[in-house]
């Protein structure tokens, strides 16, 4: 495609995209980083929580974990092997909470705080033991679909728990 055609195509596609956005958001378009109060916000958000158990046992990582080079780095590398204990998908309505009981008795609670105009999500997570001492009272994360964050360090069976929380959509 010649440069002029490319430019024309870009302009045309931008106009189409802007037109679509104007229909979805009749009010002023939300600025980047601000909450998006339209249909996109009402879509289901799904996060996938993988619970890994890191130990010093000399064996291969659980193949069900999949490729995860992060486990070879930093403090993760101090554990010889990782096993996948569970992997669950949690559907999060905006403002709604989902809880996941962890193997050590604590509960991971995840909440979708808001959907931002740039498509990223603001999530709140906490890990506490019912009736017990707080472990992680609050963690606020901004992530796009496809991105993950990790909460690690909980003691479990001579090793640690590694929670990999991935925003699926």
């Amino acid at each position, binding site marked *: 495609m010649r440069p002029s055609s490319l430019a024309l195509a870009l302009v045309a596609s931008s106009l189409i995209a802007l037109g679509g956005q104007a229909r979805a958001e009749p009010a002023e378009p939300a600025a980047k980083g601000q909450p998006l109060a339209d249909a996109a916000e009402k879509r289901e958000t799904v996060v996938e929580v993988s619970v890994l158990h890191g130990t010093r046992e000399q064996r291969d990582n659980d193949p069900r974990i999949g490729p995860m*080079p*992060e486990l070879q*780095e*930093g*403090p*993760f590398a*101090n554990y010889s092997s990782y096993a996948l204990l569970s992997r669950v998908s949690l559907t999060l309505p905006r403002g709604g909470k989902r809880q996941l009981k962890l193997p*050590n008795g604590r509960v991971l609670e995840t909440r979708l705080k808001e959907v931002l105009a740039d498509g990223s999500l*603001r999530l709140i997570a906490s890990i506490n*033991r019912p009736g017990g*001492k*707080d*472990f*992680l*009272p*609050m*963690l*606020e*994360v*901004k*992530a*796009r679909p496809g*991105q*993950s*964050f*990790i*909460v*690690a*360090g*909980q*003691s*479990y*069976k*001579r*090793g*640690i728990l590694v929670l990999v929380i991935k*925003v699926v959509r």
Partner: protein
Amino acid sequence: MKDETKLLLRYLDGELPPAEAERFRARLAASPELYRELQRMQQVGALLRAWSKTAEARGAELLEPTLRRVEAEHDAGRRRSVYGTLACGLALSLLFVLRGSSGSLAATPAVEHLQAAHFLGGAAIERVEASDQQAQVFVVGRASTPVVWLADDAQDDDGPPNQDPG
């Protein structure tokens, strides 16, 4: 940062005058909790030093992964509120801080000075409230995956507490 934590960091750095260090050693001997805190800091310090050496050896990959220890700030409710900045530039500058910090974590910048909340590549930890345990925030991997690592005082069913991040 708690005065006690500052004292610990200064002790680990060898910055305490001899008499004060002697008094602090006496306090350590009398307080298992304080001694445990010292051990934790030593473990984390060793980890940081080891990783910073690894990162240095990786040459072009110095940018990532980058380790960031976030100091926690106690509020009135004994919770520590941490506002993490893990922007790549800051992370890089931190690496230099870590590389220059061969003795302890004392050179780590105070977390309250951090403002931004974006990773260039991955998700962003915007806020962490930990209890009274030590919290670290850092990124790993080419995707700059953010990690919150918390020391755990809880007892396992079949083993001692695993507080060792390193």
